[in-house]
């Protein structure tokens, strides 16, 4: 597209740059403001008139939510963090395994009911989390899965499996069948051919599926808020709501917790952003 750029007049070029700049400001400022808030003392946050340039930065807000300050009771943030991590990682790993098997079946085999099954998986993904939370609450209560990590893990499995199937189906289809066949001629069983040839080639795609699954679980709120009750299974997003229960909204504390929630997602996403975009795009375009 560089050729077309030469056809623009300078003022058009500057208009384009200005437009992009405004868009980026809108995308960055809200998040950045929250991050900044997390490091500012409460007096500055509440100051009238507003203090734009911070005079001092502090870690007190983080100490506060971890309960390291005597002035206020802390939240079980550490426990929430552990819950979030355990639930997200476990459900991601298992969803990946299950989804990969399913995606492989769709990509490599012809069988009766294939189209209907695929549609069924995709439709199951359309059910809104809130709408699902009501009946799940009833069923999980009956079988004792309410307020357990296992209960949430299973739920997140079901949310992540269809999307993983969709992505991996696309990735496996990109790999020519010839390669698996060549491996079988070379002496592999179908199982060996999969692990030695198809799996290594799909690895980048699987990584992106894993990130999507992890982010979905890590960020999920609607179901977690109904299916967890105590520190036994509450996750960070649900923990964020603890603050609103208090009479005065603690903006600084909430911002600090928000930073805690966003950091792992941020790191993970930037590490693998290339695969992420590949995953987003071609699962659908070529699939």
């Amino acid at each position, binding site marked *: *597209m*560089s050729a077309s*750029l030469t056809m623009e007049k300078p003022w058009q070029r500057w208009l*384009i740059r200005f437009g*992009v700049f405004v868009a*980026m400001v*809108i995308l*960055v400022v*809200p*998040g950045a*403001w*929250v991050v900044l*808030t997390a490091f500012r003392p409460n007096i500055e946050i*509440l100051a009238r*008139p507003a203090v*734009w340039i911070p005079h001092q930065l502090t870690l007190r807000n983080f100490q506060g939510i971890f309960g390291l300050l005597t002035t206020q009771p802390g939240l079980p943030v550490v426990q929430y963090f552990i819950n979030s991590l355990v639930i997200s990682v476990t459900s991601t790993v298992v969803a990946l395994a*299950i989804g990969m098997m*399913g995606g492989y*079946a*769709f990509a*490599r*085999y012809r*069988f009766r009911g294939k189209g209907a099954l695929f549609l*069924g998986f*995709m439709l199951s993904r*359309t*059910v*809104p989390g*809130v*709408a*699902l939370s*009501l*009946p799940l*609450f*009833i*069923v999980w209560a009956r079988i004792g899965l309410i307020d357990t990590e296992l209960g949430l893990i299973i*739920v997140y*499995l*079901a949310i992540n*499996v269809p999307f993983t199937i969709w992505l991996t189906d696309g990735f496996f289809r990109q790999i020519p069948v010839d390669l698996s066949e060549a491996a079988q001629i070379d002496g592999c069983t179908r199982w060996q051919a999969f692990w030695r040839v198809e799996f290594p080639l799909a690895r980048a795609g699987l990584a992106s599926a894993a990130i999507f699954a992890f*982010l979905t679980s890590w*960020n999920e709120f*609607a179901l977690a808020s*109904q299916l967890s009750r105590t520190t036994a299974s509450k996750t960070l*997003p649900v923990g*964020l*709501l603890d603050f609103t229960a208090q009479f005065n909204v603690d*903006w600084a504390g*909430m911002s600090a917790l*928000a930073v805690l929630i966003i950091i792992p997602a*941020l790191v993970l*996403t*930037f590490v693998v*952003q290339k695969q*992420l*975009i590949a995953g*987003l*795009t071609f699962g*659908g*375009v070529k699939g």
Partner: protein
Amino acid sequence: MKFLRSPRATPYLLLLPAIVVILAVVLVPLLVSFWTSFTGYTLTKPATLFQFVGLRNYQRLLGNADFWWAFARTIMFITIALNLELVLGLGLALLINKITWGQRTLRTIMMFPMMFSPILVGFQFKYLFNDAVGLVNNALFDLGLIHEPIAWLVEAGLANFSIIFAEMWMSTSVFAILLLAGLMALPKEPIEAARVDGCNAWQVFRHITLPFLMPFIYIALTIRSLDVARAYDMVKIMTNGGPAQRTELLWTLMTRVGYQNSQMGMANAMGYISIIVSIAFTVFYYRKLTSARAFMGGAQ
């Protein structure tokens, strides 16, 4: 037993765990909720689970103004949000596509909102739009544009605007990223041929670029319609449907009815309606996607 060992069983065996999970977590609960939507089930009285009331929940819902308001607002919300996100995302993708320098960085910045949990987005904008300490009001004050705080999250119009704004902040980049990928995959020859044939920039966009992007547009719409209900999290923390139900969506209303009023039967009836709404949007865009693909010359 013999079937299970034959090669024909392999794909089914591979899919078995996935099927089991979906059955257990989606299908069975949905059947339960389907049943409860015909009962007067109240959380506090377990016996009511078997109190069959026929279509009474649905009848009541259909005769209830609150429900219809929430329903209409939800449809409006989805329609406005998806379309605005599409238009803005397309615009953003076209702009970035024109920029030759730093595209990768821009794309990275665009991924930023995608990592945010909807509940975080809600919190973030609850903070920004707060009348006392919010960034928006502070800025307007200091610029001398207002002298009284604006109650962004209280006044009906403004509150709904704020929610849509937050939703767009969260999801416009999904469109932008997908469409940018589409633009980058756009073959050069047709554009050059059109230029040679005397098309101007607009005509090239209208007749070459846009048709090529159509599948990407519908993929983006399909993906987004899949999880548009995640906006519940956002609304939950921003306004929770209030004040006085001014921002009530189907999703917030159903949790209120289900958990706070314990009327599970009624809530599940609403849940069913919201599921149908979601499926309708997804199926609509998915069908557009398949026809757009066929139009593009059967590229599978």
